[in-house]
């Protein structure tokens, strides 16, 4: 699968359903009812709107197909994959799943997908109990079994871990464990207390803890040769601003949108402020008229970032700022360059 040069890419995180068979403690969803879920005809119209935007902007689309749990809508998921496979506006797509619903026939189907880059599953630890306290009973065994089946089928597998106080000391060992299971890429997100995750707010990292974890991930990522540790995330640039594979500017307002199960558009799934509805408003109106997007595009409006030399490659996480400080333009509470911030 070709990698798209960053400047040419536009990313859609597409939640085709809100339904999920798991109830992870840190989940950013508040509801799993999927009220107003789009029909397949509406999903197709959604994709046409995305393709129109990609063509108008001369960008190549990258997609994450997710939920909820996308395999709760297996038939629609596969039909969307067919459409993406046949679209000249699409570079590749990933499927973000908890992995627990995949069946043998699904694996065969995934192997035939033309533009499927990776299947991403979530795991919180290499220790079953530590994982299952967050993701539910037996989740660890099912996810690891899914990883092994996907790898046996020759598919590329990514693992995402959400870092809390509960698993922050497990990352290096986890990378080793995942490499043993032939996982291709590993990435971390800092836990943000939102949605269902508001109930475990006390597990959020402090600034010092976040720094230690990101530095540990960076160190392990540099040393690890068996899998790629992806560090395209805000704040990683604080560790090594000279390495182009480390750190990435928050994509809000520049090259990404999130589309929810009912067509609602968010700047990012972790920043659930509705910008409009993709079917009712269209992408261009949302993209060009949103005051939120225009504010985030202007680094001088982001507290703590305007004078920072890393502003082209970081700007912190606007969602973290919003959920912790109540203002998406405030400083990322984990940014250790901002001496005045306290986590």
């Amino acid at each position, binding site marked *: 699968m070709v990698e798209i040069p960053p400047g040419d890419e536009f990313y859609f995180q597409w939640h085709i359903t809100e339904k999920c068979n798991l109830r992870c403690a840190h989940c950013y969803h508040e509801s799993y009812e999927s009220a107003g879920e789009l029909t397949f005809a509406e999903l197709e119209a959604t994709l046409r709107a995305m393709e*129109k*935007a990609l063509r*108008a*902007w001369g960008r190549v689309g990258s997609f994450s197909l997710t939920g909820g749990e996308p395999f709760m809508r297996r038939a629609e998921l596969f039909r969307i994959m067919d459409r993406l496979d046949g679209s000249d506006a699409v570079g590749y797509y990933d499927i973000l799943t908890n992995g627990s619903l995949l069946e043998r026939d699904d694996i065969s189907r995934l192997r035939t997908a033309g533009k499927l880059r990776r299947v991403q599953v979530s795991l919180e630890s290499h220790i079953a109990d530590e994982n299952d306290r967050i993701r539910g009973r037996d989740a660890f065994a099912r996810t690891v079994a899914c990883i092994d089946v996907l790898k046996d089928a020759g598919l590329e597998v990514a693992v995402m871990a959400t870092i809390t106080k509960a698993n922050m000391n497990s990352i290096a060992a986890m990378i080793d464990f995942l490499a043993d299971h032939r996982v291709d890429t590993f990435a971390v997100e800092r836990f943000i207390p939102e949605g269902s995750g508001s109930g475990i707010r006390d597990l959020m990292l402090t600034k010092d803890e976040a720094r230690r974890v990101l530095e540990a991930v960076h160190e392990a990522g540099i040393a690890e040769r068996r899998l790629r540790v992806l560090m395209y995330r805000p704040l990683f640039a604080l560790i090594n601003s000279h390495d182009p594979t480390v750190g990435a500017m928050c994509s809000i307002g520049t090259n990404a949108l999130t589309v929810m199960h009912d067509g609602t558009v968010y700047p990012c799934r972790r920043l659930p402020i509705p910008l409009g509805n993709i079917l009712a408003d*269209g*992408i*261009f*109106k949302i993209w*060009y*008229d949103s005051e939120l997007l*225009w504010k985030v*595009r*202007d*680094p*001088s409006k982001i507290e703590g970032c305007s004078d920072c030399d890393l502003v082209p490659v970081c700007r912190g996480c606007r969602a973290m700022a919003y959920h912790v400080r109540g203002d998406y333009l405030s400083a990322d509470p984990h940014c250790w360059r901002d001496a005045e911030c306290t986590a």
Partner: protein
Amino acid sequence: MYRLSEKVSIRHIEADDSYWAFDVQDGSQYELNETAFLILAGLAKGAGLDALGARIAEEYGIGLDIATRDVDAVLTNLQELGLLDTEGES
């Protein structure tokens, strides 16, 4: 009588002091000069040709006749780009 098309969104981007018109139907975008932006902003507020001419004359310290003629020329260009509707057209 011109008015700003409903499909057009205009914006002054402070960060680089640039002026833009965006077509929210087909995604086209046009970088404007300050004068064109002032004219479109005036139209968005319902200003007519005379008021726009007076605004430009005041802004740039030029005669009203010259300003009105310039506004008329800019409006013609903007209409050719599809950024304007004429009265009765939507």
